């Protein structure tokens, strides 16, 4: 029977949000269970807070009892909520890596790519992070996995007769 440290704070990423400069949500990945209502509230408030930040300010802010790490790439804000113990600087690197992956996949990614192919943005994210933690540190391997999965999807569609174009 194991004895546990009491009340240990979980160190993990709680959620990642992508939103435009007008505050439109482009992607939401939640790693903690919350009701739809709570998610909406958090999203609304956080988006407002981040959009109010001036360009000269640093990429970190304290919000409720979380640390928010955000970075703007062109017209999109990438926003992560991490726990108090986490390393903010490496979180910036995580965000950057994700952007690089999107960029490689879509070929010079822009916001429209993510709007029209949001499900792919999720797939890529799910090959890079799992449960809020990095699962693969090699850019090449993440992209390879996505490529293979896409191929599998296409080949199956062909098998099922006549729907070789995008099933979606």
């Amino acid at each position, binding site marked *: 029977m*194991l*004895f*546990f*440290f009491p009340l*240990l704070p*979980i*160190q993990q990423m709680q959620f990642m949000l992508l939103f435009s400069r007008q505050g439109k*949500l482009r*992607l*939401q990945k939640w*790693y903690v*269970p*919350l*009701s739809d209502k709570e998610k*909406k509230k958090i999203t609304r408030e956080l988006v407002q807070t981040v959009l109010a930040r*001036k360009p*000269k*300010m*640093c*990429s*970190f*802010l*304290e919000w409720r009892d979380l640390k928010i790490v955000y970075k703007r790439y062109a017209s999109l804000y990438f926003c992560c909520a991490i726990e108090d113990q986490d*390393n*903010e*600087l*490496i979180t*910036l*690197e*995580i965000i950057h*890596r994700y952007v690089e992956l999107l960029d490689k996949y879509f070929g010079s990614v822009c916001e429209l790519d993510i*709007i*029209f192919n*949001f*499900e792919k943005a*999720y*797939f890529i994210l*799910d*090959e890079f992070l*799992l*449960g809020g*933690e*990095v*699962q*693969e*540190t*090699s*850019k090449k*391997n993440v992209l390879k*996995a996505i490529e*293979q*999965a896409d191929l*599998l*999807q296409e080949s*199956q*569609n062909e098998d*099922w007769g006549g729907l070789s174009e*995008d*099933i*979606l």
Partner: protein
Amino acid sequence: MPAPIRLRELIRTIRTARTQAEEREMIQKECAAIRSSFREEDNTYRCRNVAKLLYMHMLGYPAHFGQLECLKLIASQKFTDKRIGYLGAMLLLDERQDVHLLMTNCIKNDLNHSTQYVQGLALCTLGCMGSSEMCRDLAGEVEKLLKTSNSYLRKKAALCAVHVIRKVPELMEMFLPATKNLLNEKNHGVLHTSVVLLTEMCERSPDMLAHFRKNEKLVPQLVRILKNLIMSGYSPEHDVSGISDPFLQVRILRLLRILGRNDDDSSEAMNDILAQVATNTETSKNVGNAILYETVLTIMDIKSESGLRVLAINILGRFLLNNDKNIRYVALTSLLKTVQTDHNAVQRHRSTIVDCLKDLDVSIKRRAMELSFALVNGNNVRGMMKELLYFLDSCEPEFKADCASGIFLAAEKYAPSKRWHIDTIMRVLTTAGSYVRDDAVPNLIQLITNSVEMHAYTVQRLYKAILGDYSQQPLVQVASWCIGEYGDLLVSGQCEEEEPIQVTEDEVLDILESVLISNMSASVTRGYALTAIMKLSTRFTCTVNRIKKVVSIYGSSIDVELQQRAVEYNALFKKYDHMRPALLERMPVMEKVTTNGPAEIVQTNGETETAVLETKPPPSGLQPANQANDLLDLLGGSDITPVIPTAPPSKPASGGELLDLLGDLNLTGIPSITAYNKNGLKIEFTFERSNTNPSVTVITIQASNSTELDMTDFVFQAAVPKTFQLQLLSPSSSVIPAFNSGTITQVIKVLNPQKQQLRMRIKLTYNHKGSAMQDLAEVNNFPPQSWQ
């Protein structure tokens, strides 16, 4: 039935909507179509419909009717279906929905699927949103996959296991065997996720932590891996700006932190590698600094040697000078954490930290402020306060309250002189007067009271401060109180510290009345002002009638608090005028209040509430205080000079025992004396010495009346020589019944730090047989045991 509109087509259409209403209409139309499609159990296009639903969900529209459809997709054999189905599950379902448990079986099957990408989907979903029940059911499958040789699956299984452990900590043990050879992997993905898994286990369970330290010898393994990462040449796959796999490096450093914490051996084993990382890591880009940051955190948390700690703090010091504000931010955060333990090392960077007060970023400013306060000490207090006062002046409103409180605290602890202390307080009150916290007001009043030689200076400065502007409530409250107490010093122009100003009694009353009338004044502030005006009736000579008038006006104030005060003060003027001088006398030196804790306030009379801690000023019904200078005016003055407190205000010990009436008293027989015996009035003194403070003598007086008529309105007053302090507590009553049928008792506490011979002058006033009686006497027969 035509094929449902494509996803991208729908997105395009919705984006053409020009208004919210138009968008809503489109959405509703599409939702209706999707619903009927679902009803028809269309297998072919189910994934398309769910995908569209997910898009609309992201726009904020309800999509719960798609939940079951997601389950159907997951159960399908097509990969596309599963992909969309699992995505939908992660977005639309969570553990609150009962429906989610239906997923369990599908996930179980998919965990055993022949295609690794399907297995991957299942692992991902479980690791992202699996509920405790699901985790319990599927932990065994995850454990199996943790042992597979397929690195693609192994890494996902490791993170899935992390999630399972977070949800169901008791299951941790079952993953232990599978962790045996995790670090022997070459694959960085597996290495990284394994380190995360090990970290989770070590953090949650001291048993696991001990096991991994001793049995598995985790530290040497991690050191080896880290070393390889640093020393190895360029690896294109894992390179980030010249650094090999920074993500893995950071996670290893964090795990080392946990292993080295409170453990000498482990700490020693990692000492070299930490030094190596700290000195060799490239710092030009964020990625290098991220590693350095993690290294610093580890060094500070384990039992590192002092050289290493200094190295770490110096890294933070360099961070402070970095152009990148993010780096400055983390530096300040870390320094804040270490300032207690490595105070001297952090002090070296004080000037850089103070410079950060001028940063544009709010988060950086806040940290710089907190850190600055932590660095204030007796040596640097003047310089630091200058910077912090300047900061208070120029900072955003959200900082002002905290900054003001911080300055008060630091000033209290390290003030080099009373004058400086008062000046600093004045500066804060005038700069940020409306942001000062409520509890600061009583603390400041007490501080001012105890700085006896600064009274004239303080009241003058406060008067000048509110003359121009009486809108800042805390400032006005403190100023009103001071003017009420020391108004006589103000008009008599007694200031030593600076050029005394010429103020007339009327001018003083003008400002107090303005405060009373002003719309900006809070109710509490008005209370202060009214009481101050009242007190001045005994300190001013020419304007008593004006004061009477003001007080009587407020007897019908709408504000109940003011009304009550005014009515009581009126009564003082009318019925109890003979008591008024005594009641409104100067406040004595108060007990030192610890600024954080509950107060041990000594008021001169026990009946009042602990007024200094509340925002209300001392209530009106003051019993004879004993500021001897006023008493001695009445007595006609002589060689007995006013009591000046000998103890500086920052020493709590001196008065502490004065409060304790019953405890620590030495009840050995000190002979009691008859202090006074005339006209049927006899006053006896009995003595007690405090065990804990040899300078304290407690005198209980008993007044008895041997005549055939009662003595009423009896008031006892006392004065002591210069080197003593005296406190008079409330009497048991004001009537001494006739025929010795009862007594009045009252307690006097005397502080005699210089152990001088106790002498006392007393003054008695009472009504007897229809006439007012008054007498003065000197008490010289104190037994030696009462003061030696």
